[in-house]
């Protein structure tokens, strides 16, 4: 069973080599006529003004944070799901409570308006 990960290792190596090889090939096959205007970032044909790295809205940060909370809790649900058929009554109650707390958190975020996009 452990040696099955050998396949994953090989596949990951190939999955890195394929894009690198394709891009390198494209780099050498294509023409190379750089000029300063061409190497600017594209801005609908007009001259590029300043950096794009600006302050962004806090809403995106909030969504990222909510995602983080949920993703970690979802990962905890997977072991519960695997062992579910052999769980005792007490453990089942604990699992159900866990999902209930997850839902409670979601409704709290909803009430607080973190899910509203404006």
């Amino acid at each position, binding site marked *: 069973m452990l040696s099955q990960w050998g396949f994953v290792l090989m596949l990951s190596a190939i999955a890195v080599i394929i894009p690198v090889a394709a891009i390198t090939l494209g780099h050498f096959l294509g023409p190379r006529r750089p000029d300063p205007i061409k190497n600017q970032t594209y801005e609908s044909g007009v001259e590029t003004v300043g950096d794009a790295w*600006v302050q962004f809205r806090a809403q995106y940060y909030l969504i990222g944070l909510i995602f983080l909370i949920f993703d970690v809790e979802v990962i905890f649900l997977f072991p519960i799901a695997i062992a579910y058929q052999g769980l005792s009554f007490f453990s089942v109650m604990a699992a159900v409570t866990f999902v209930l707390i997850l839902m409670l958190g979601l409704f709290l975020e909803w009430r607080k308006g973190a899910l509203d996009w404006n």
Partner: protein
Amino acid sequence: MNWSDAVIQFQYDLGAPQELSWLVEGITYFVGALILAMASLTLALLLIWITRKVISRIQDRIGPNRLGPYGLFQSVADAMKLLSKEDIKPTSSDTVSYVIARVLAVLGVLMSLAVIPFGAGLIGADLSVGVLYLVALGSIGIMAALMAGWGSNNKYALLAGFRVVAQLLSYEIPMVLAMLAPVLLVGTMSMQGLANAQSLYLGPINLGFGWFIFVLPGAFLIYMIAALAESEQTPFDLLEAESELIAGFHIEYSGMKFAMFFLAQFLNSFFLGAIAVSLFLGGWQGPFAGQVPLLGPIYFFAKTFFVYVVIQWIKGTFPRVRVDQMMQFAWKVLVPSVLTLLLAQMIIMKLPLPLWLNAIFVLVANIVVVVVVLNVLGNYFKREQVRSKRAFEPTSLIGTMQPVHPSSGD
């Protein structure tokens, strides 16, 4: 028995020395992975052709029809063209994330090949954590899009990067929770185990119709909607809304670098369909797949291509949603319904009832969720239809160019 065990055993039978087992296994895995990756690259060319054909038929066009039979070689010609394009790198971009992003995009997609069961014993690596592995890989694709958006130092690309956070992260949650439902039902995360569990025996004969969609239609619906959003297909293609963002996060990538993102996107929507097939639509199971192993891959690819064509059909017919509608739908409809579904399934599975009665209760809970989600979607599209009709009415100001108050003439 898995294909790799069979091949390794075959090599030992031919006289390969037992003490060099690491070499034998390594070569076997390497050749297997190489074949799988190369086949998926060829598949991407076919997928692009299918997409173009389906979309053109929906739009009353013929689509590519010049190169080869039915225009099959059009995508090969396009790949050659992209190969001969100039490799432009904007000077003000952030080199590290700009370079890594395109590799990560392909890596995250190709790696998911390892756990897709194409047939009985035909799975790259039958990992015991297969579903969790797929969940982890889903985040790599998001990372790649985010890095491309940020690293390009382009305003449009950065806006697309923001939308990656809004869309892909939001739909990741309902997708993962929907994938949890079959895992909870069977109690294994191995993809081959999940495919095996979807058999239906009538005496000794495997009818292969114990598909989880018959028990978990709600989870399937939520998975498909979330997968549409994850694969950046049209109702949810805000990441590359051409009229707003020009091209999206890959705007600064030219030639082969662009092709890599393109490849990743097409393969991603196919693999999400393949995961849907192996989790909900029976995988390689079908009538007599247990008796004739050759039928397994045929059933699998038939189902997966069917799901892919349905995804393209949706792509060709639905209008794009707004960002606030999309976010609200994910967090206020999909996540609560899938959590309720899981809760109901957990409680029902522990009720001291016969198995078939449990299955019926789970089905009822799923049907309730299907009705709720479809109702919300139906109301939304009805409202949008009324809105767009109103905009084109003769009395409407939009489209008529009439001034609000006609001037008195002085």
